């Protein structure tokens, strides 16, 4: 382990300062503390979703559901229009004596396409909003951060925060009695 004091001097090439916790509860508490302290640019990392954590670090609702709704609409409309266009415009045939626009028969396709497009937007939208794929990220510089995907919980206050100040921030974090506090190099 490298000793904190030294690294803190290179504030300019810091992404932020990170504190490690043992359990979700303390992380949640820490995050709320930080916010009270007035920190804004921060992120919390946990091996599984933790209720209230996102809100605690000031994350306001997500757009995913709106996208999905739009996707669903397009899918449904597209599905029905496709069937209608094929049977009425593209090549009108007398099929089994049914009218050209046998709309009841188009329901299944309409529905399936709605679901298909909605689901695709859900996943693609989620990834895009999360800015993924993003294989490189400064937090990975921290070696212990590997355990964020196993059993440890991290709070990272980012250098971009106007209130960020290497020494002060570090001392603030240490006050939250974490396992450890470390710098996140850029």
């Amino acid at each position, binding site marked *: 382990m490298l000793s904190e004091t030294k690294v803190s001097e290179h504030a300019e090439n810091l992404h932020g300062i990170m504190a490690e916790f043992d359990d979700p509860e303390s992380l949640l508490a820490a995050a709320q503390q930080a916010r009270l302290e007035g920190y804004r640019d921060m992120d919390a990392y946990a091996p599984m979703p933790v209720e209230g954590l996102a809100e605690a670090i000031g994350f306001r609702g997500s757009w995913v559901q709106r996208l999905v709704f739009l996707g669903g609409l397009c899918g449904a409309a597209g599905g029905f229009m496709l069937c209608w266009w094929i049977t009425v415009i593209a*090549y009108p*045939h*007398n*099929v*089994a*004596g*049914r*009218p050209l626009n*046998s709309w009841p028969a188009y329901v299944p396709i309409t529905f399936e396409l709605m679901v298909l497009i909605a689901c695709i937007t859900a996943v693609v939208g989620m990834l895009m909003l999360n800015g993924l794929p993003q294989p490189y990220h400064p937090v990975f510089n921290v070696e212990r951060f590997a355990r964020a995907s196993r059993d440890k919980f991290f709070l990272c206050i980012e250098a971009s925060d106007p209130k960020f100040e290497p020494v002060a921030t570090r001392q603030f974090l240490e006050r939250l009695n974490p396992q450890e506090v470390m710098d996140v190099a850029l």
Partner: protein
Amino acid sequence: MKSDEPLYWRSLEELASTDDFRAFVEDEFPNRTPDWNDPESRRGFLRVMGASILLVGASACTRQPKEVIVPYVRQPEELIPGNPLFYATAMSVAGIATGVLAESHLGRPTKIEGNPEHPASLGATDAAMQASVLTLYDPDRSQTVTRNGSISGWGSFITALVGARDVAGLKKGLGFRILTGTVTSPTLATQIQNFLAEFPAAKWHQYDPCGRHSVRSGAMAAFGKPLNTIYRFDRADVIVSLDADFLSSTVPGSLRYARDYSTRRRAAAENPNVAPPRLYIAENAPSVTGSMADHHFRMTAAGVAGFTADLARGGTGAASPEARGVLKDLEAHRGSSIVIAGEHQAPQVHAFVHAINQALGNVGKTVIYTDPVEANPLDEISSIVDLVKDMRDGAVETLLILGGNPVYDAPADLSFLDALKRVKLRVHSGLYSNETAAWCHWHVPEAHYLESWSDGRAYDGTASIVQPLIMPLYGGKTAHEVMNILANRADQSAHDTVRGYWQANHKGDDFDDFWQISLHDGVIAGTSFPEKLPPAAKAIDPAAIASLGATAPAGLEIVFRPDPCVGDGTLSNNAWLQEMPKPQNKMTWDNAVWISSKSAEHYGVTTGDVVEIELKGRKVAGPVWIMPGQADESLTIHFGYGRTRAGKVADGIGFDAYTLRPTDALWQGTGVSIRRKSDGYKFANTQHTQTMEERDPFRAATYAEFHKDPEFARPEEKRVAKDLSLFPLWEYKQHKWGMSIDLNSCTGCNACTIACQSENNIPVVGKEEVAKGRHMNWLRVDRYFKGPLEDPEMYFQPVPCMHCEDALCELVCPVAATVHSAEGLNEMVYNRCVGTRYCSNNCPYKVRRFNFFLYADWNTESLFGVRNPDVSVRSRGVMEKCSYCIQRINSAKIDAEKQDRPVKDGDIVTACQQACPAQAIVFGDLNNPNSRVAKLKRQQRDYGLLEELNTRPRTTYLARLRNPNPDLEKG
């Protein structure tokens, strides 16, 4: 007709033989999607696969392969490429000719139609005639002159034959014999007679295995001289058939008889003032005629003789109640009744029948006598017997066999082959190098009738000229040309010979016109024989009655009959006929031992058992088929199977009934024993369910019931409200095609099935595939039994596509490969079909057929010739079905359009309709209230199959009406 213009033929011949022609023929033929069998199209397969993966084939048709197009060098002027030509000619079966019109595409005969001008056809055909065009292209036909089995030439053959003649000539022709089938051809007869005149010691024998032996000797017995009998069923109120299957093609004139009889039935059904005819039949095995009968007396073939005797005893004397009832009816219809004896009944029976008809005053009214149509009527049995005797005695040095196959079909007790081996020079001329050819020093290929100049007489004596449509494909020659060799006129063509004969016998100087007209019409005017008043038939004395009535020795009886499909065996190698379901049991590719259920139980055998039948020491083994309606203690077996040198199609299938057939029991014999050998023989039938299973696809009623309830065919619960649909109905503004099938006329003869096969390039699939349930016939004839298993009524129902207006098949096709046309046709687009087979599942009539493999034969080039260029040849993996002969509809419409006139009723005739001898099928425009089909559909008997499903079928049926004798009505 310039068809005798030599250049024409030469260029055609060349075309026929060159690769160009083949290429051309191929190009006439539609899309072959890849067949993995041959490398060329294997590449095609991969190409298409690649295409589908790359989506390059976004248009389904990838790059067209290079195709060449080959024009004539000198184009015959009457020929318009792309339009078919029709030539009138005639086809002879067992010597009796029937007029046909042969359709020719660019010199390729592709289809046979009946000749409306010809009295024996009136435009109708039977299955054999339809199939004859396939025989023309049969690659198994003999293709070369052979000497002791090795290839030789016509030159050396002529030398050999002339040599033999000259040797015989030294002794006035002694030891020179000619064997032919029954000959009606005036030309050929004259040629032979001239030969005999030159060589008086030579002899001419005639033998046809299924000829009219009994009929001939019957007439001799009754009148002391041979007379030909013609029946006028259109005039008959009461018909008593004594084992006479006059509606099936085994009887000369059957097409005409079927037409007359059905016309009468139809008239009666449509017009209450016309008395419906009543048909009684006594027979041992169910026949198509039996299926039309109002009363079916089931008795052994021997019993039929007894029954005849019973009838002869007269009103009071008759023993059986049936006979009494029949006699009463006959008495009531003197002069308007027919008693007809079966071709295969004993001569005495015929003699009796002649007497009975005379007694009933039918002669000259419903029963007409004329001179015999045979050029040289003689007792063919004694003729062959003599020949064999002489051969055995070594009295025969040269035997010239013109057609025929005696080694296979001569009576077994003669052991023809042994005798034949004693003949020094044996010459055979025939379509096939058959069993007989195998034992002849010389075999020469015979020309098919579509390649021949000849002539022949119909059942009523009408003479027709047989003219060729194509040069002999395999260099065959006609009997005329062979006879010319003997007359030292080897270079004279059959054309000149035939023309010569008629010129010689033509009075007046307008011969050329006469000749042209005769060729064009297909009949020679004024050649039908005039009616003859016969001498009083030999009186029937009680002794004769007693002897005839004496019931045959008890015990099992065996009955020999020509096969319903392949006849006496001459047609065995025709795959269409082999795969044509036999009317009575829907069996294909086989013959079987028919037995009644009761007898089967008695002898401990059942369907599928292989039994050994023994008659007078001769044995044959064949599989058993339990046939409802078969008489007890009576076996029926059919000829035409068990061939050894017929060709790839027929060799080794079925068993040979001839090996059991003695001269003294030509058609039936008693004292036969059967022994069960093994079981589990697999038949290939196209229909497995025998009955209607409490359903009523086929609807019938007696006249009494019909008058009581005229709507019997469409009871309330079967009808659907016209507008019973969630959706508005489609309107069909221009045409509205529909079809009506009269079950009251249909005899189940299968002519329509084969006509359809020929018209629509329907492939043959073979026994295994049929057994799997994959037969391809677009138009199937369903057979149902009704009533007790022993003696049921037998019904036939032709089932083509119904062209439903609310077609269930269309609804479920994912690629719109089957949709409706503006004229209400249920279109099937082969090239769009991907083969989900969903349409077939959803078709309540199961009329769709699927190409599970590549059934179309793309390996046998000679068979390309038979295909109809106006119909796609379907490839592997696509669905197909009846199209109402769309190619005919389109061409008729185009012709009408070009002449700027509407399509007239009758312009469009479907193949099945055209072939049907009973005129049971009528096609036309339902929007035209005066069209025949529209009128028929307005009849009360009209009903739709499964119409309660609201499929709105365009094909509907007219219910069957029966006219039983109240006195004899069962129950």
